[in-house]
């Protein structure tokens, strides 16, 4: 069976389980495996039971049970990972009903769990995935503390429960905005952070019940939430920009050696690149951010990603929510400004997968990995290129969104009757 009718796709969607996912073979494309096999020309990716079963340079003999997708002249990559988003937590951020990405006046900080607030019923899911984003880290965007709580790692597939990993990471803001939340000075902010981690260290040794006597500055819930962070079991992401703050974090890691740190934003990261590399810390950057938005970002440059990479730092790209689909363009611009091409692709695949400890499942095309695969009309970092096929967890998703439906409704203006009767 070479083609699948729309009805059949809809059926597969309704069943929504990888057990029913069809067997697929993507034949003939340029495959960026992002793994040890490197880039394969004219190769084949075979998908069964929601997983990649083979990635081959050789022509394969496949029986009729495989649906063949001809990818000749196209480029095949792992599904791109939204490195830092609020997907599933926000529909319209400004002045429009509940926005779960923003927390105000909450008694909880580190204990906040973004995963508990996530929904799949957001237009952002289809809008993002038809542009090649197949999974994402999702986190709260703002709170009234430097602690932004715990984020989740989600799929943009058809699953009713999108959370692949609950409590996947902790977010802490140590940039200007974090300091502003902590009495308006870094002097207060760093003291608070040190105390918080020390209290978590102490909390490891006791059982925190409602009756336990506790005189920490953190709430019991927040103290408990930070235990996996100081144990190194939960990655901790620090929003940070200026070089001095990055050095402060490096000192913090001397005291709390198990911290599994990633830096987010990190406009001045290039100035401390070698120390970041030496500490084996990854970064998530917006490589296009080259303006001094505040004094903490005076060193911002388009070459940030390239310089960090040059020093040996693993760079992820993509910090947006509504337009996380522009992460490939950002990576392309990082490449245009000195980042090696494969590092540009890694910034969207293997590096974010490693940050979230999910690199045994996502980010590479090799046997055993979850089948999140995108076929592109050409170089995915080129702005005029788009996906032709998007496969998430072994299922090909329809390249349709609320936006494509609006487009199709208005491609031709119906002069005889109101456009609301047009159902694309």
């Amino acid at each position: 069976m070479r083609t699948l009718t729309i009805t059949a796709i809809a059926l597969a969607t309704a069943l929504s389980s990888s057990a029913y996912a069809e067997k697929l073979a993507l034949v003939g494309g340029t495959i960026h495996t992002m793994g040890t096999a490197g880039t394969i020309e004219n190769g084949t990716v075979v998908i069964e039971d929601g997983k990649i079963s083979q990635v081959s340079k050789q022509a394969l003999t496949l029986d009729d049970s495989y649906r063949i997708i001809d990818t000749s002249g196209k480029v095949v990559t792992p599904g791109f990972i939204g490195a830092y988003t609020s997907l599933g937590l926000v529909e319209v951020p400004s002045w429009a009903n509940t926005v779960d990405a923003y927390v105000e006046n909450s008694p909880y900080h580190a204990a906040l769990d973004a995963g508990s607030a996530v929904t799949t019923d957001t237009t952002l899911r289809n809008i993002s995935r038809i542009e090649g984003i197949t999974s994402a880290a999702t986190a709260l965007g703002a709170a009234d503390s430097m602690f932004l709580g715990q984020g989740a790692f989600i799929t943009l597939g058809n699953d009713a429960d999108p959370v692949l990993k609950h409590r996947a990471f902790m977010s802490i803001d140590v940039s200007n905005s974090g300091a502003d939340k902590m009495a308006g000075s870094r002097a207060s902010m760093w003291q608070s952070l040190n105390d918080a981690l020390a209290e978590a260290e102490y909390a490891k040794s006791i059982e925190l019940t409602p009756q336990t006597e506790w005189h920490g500055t953190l709430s019991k819930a927040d103290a408990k939430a930070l235990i996996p962070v100081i144990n190194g079991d939960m990655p901790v992401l620090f929003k940070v920009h200026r070089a001095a703050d990055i050095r402060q974090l490096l000192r913090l890691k001397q005291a709390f050696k198990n911290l599994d740190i990633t830096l987010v934003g990190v406009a001045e990261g290039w100035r401390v690149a070698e120390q970041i590399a030496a500490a084996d810390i990854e970064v998530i950057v917006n490589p296009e951010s080259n303006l001094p938005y505040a004094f903490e970002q005076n060193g911002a440059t388009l070459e940030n990603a390239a310089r960090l990479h040059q020093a040996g730092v693993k760079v992820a790209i993509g910090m947006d929510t509504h337009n996380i689909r522009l992460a490939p363009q950002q990576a392309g611009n990082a490449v245009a400004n000195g980042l090696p091409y494969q590092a540009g692709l890694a910034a969207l695949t293997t590096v974010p997968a490693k940050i979230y400890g999910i690199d045994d499942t996502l980010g590479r095309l090799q046997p055993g990995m979850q089948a999140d695969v995108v076929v592109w009309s050409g170089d995915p970092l080129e702005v005029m290129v788009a996906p032709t096929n998007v496969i998430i967890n072994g299922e090909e998703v329809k390249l349709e969104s609320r936006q494509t439906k609006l487009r199709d409704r208005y491609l031709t203006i119906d002069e005889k009757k109101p456009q609301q009767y047009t159902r694309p």
Partner: protein
Amino acid sequence: MKKVNKALLTSVSLLSAAIVAGCGEQATTDKKQAAFVEINKDPFPSTYQPLPTETTLISNVNMYDGVGGMAQGVSVLLDNGKIVAIGDDIDASSVSNIIDGTDKWLTPGIIDVHSHLGVYATPDAGSHADGNEMTKPVTAAVWAEHSIWPQDPGFRRALAGGVTTLQILPGSANLVGGRSVTIKNLPGRVIQDMKFPDAPYGLKMACGENPKRVYGQKGGPMTRMGNVAGYRQAWSDAQDYKRAWEKYQADYEAGKDAKPPKRDLNKETLMGVLDGEILVHMHCYRADDMGTMIDVMKEFDYQIASFQHAVEAYKIADKLAENNICSAMWADWWGFKMEAYDGIRENVPMVEAANACAIVHSDSDIGIQRLNQEAAKALSDGQRAGIDISKAQAWTWLTSNAAKSLGIFEQTGSLQVGKNADVVLWTAEPFSTYAQAEMVFIDGGLAYDRNKPEQWAISDYELGQIGEGDRK
């Protein structure tokens, strides 16, 4: 769109100068009439000076001419600030500065019709938030140029992205936000040094969500219907003001000792629109808001030059074409507020396909640096939807259509003989992510050369700071 009468502007300023100089004499020769009072319409005149130029030939280059044409392997001669020849048989014997354009691309300089550089300058501090006079719903009296900080590092970043001209507007909190100004993207010490000579003024107005959000809790308007009542009252007052000045002029000409109306700076700007001298640029997202504003425009007999942001222009592209209104649009911004929720990636090409005037704009200090990529995205999305538009045609979104909406197309916006030499030499085909502006000329002067960091302009703010002179 109504043509701005530049001859009128000039003669008016000359006249007012003459009046000031001669009023003492007139008082003695005419017993009944005081000197005729006329408003100086150009009290902050441009002092723009182009960079030094040399005769420059860009040879064997590919080009998009900005008006829909494409050519390969041509040469373009720049002399004395103008484009003086385009072709493949230009005599280069007397030209000392020859730039080999082989495998590179030449385009007109990009014109961003929507920028807040300088009025919302970086560093992004309250101290620099000079873009929105959020004190009352109609602030037509304010002029963006009085807020612009020429040292905003954003200007230099935009230059490195091939932007040679930009319109700086007030923000969108108000029904009528104030005057915009069109500037050349060449650093100046004072803003007058950057003003595009003879460019008409624009008037920033805003539909929908922003005015109601800002004023809903402080006296209104708090609804869209309140917004529209506000525009209509303002235009009605401006009509009244215009009639008062016309009566004064008629009375004066009839020999009466007429008293001039008291100047009202709000109404003066609005009267400039009614007189066809100032171009209206309206921030409107929703199709229905735009439809309403088209009726307001007809009621008060003025012309809207452009809808800015125009996220739903695709829903009414036919009406926009009929009414000769440009739409300035993003390629893919959407969803950040309810009136942006119906944004689609094919908006720009769908407007183009309806033969309406399509412009790609930024409204962003980051987006302005890569408007070529924004046009590229919109074009490719349109092509995938079956809309047949060429790259050469798509370049009109960045230059000629933008120039027309600002009333400066006679001077810039295309690679045509006689136009200002505002041109960009790209390292590669400029619809590619990897293409970068290699050389940017403004009026024939080399304003940016990617390969010569020692010649880059550095804003005063960045001098002595981390990253001074760094590649940005």
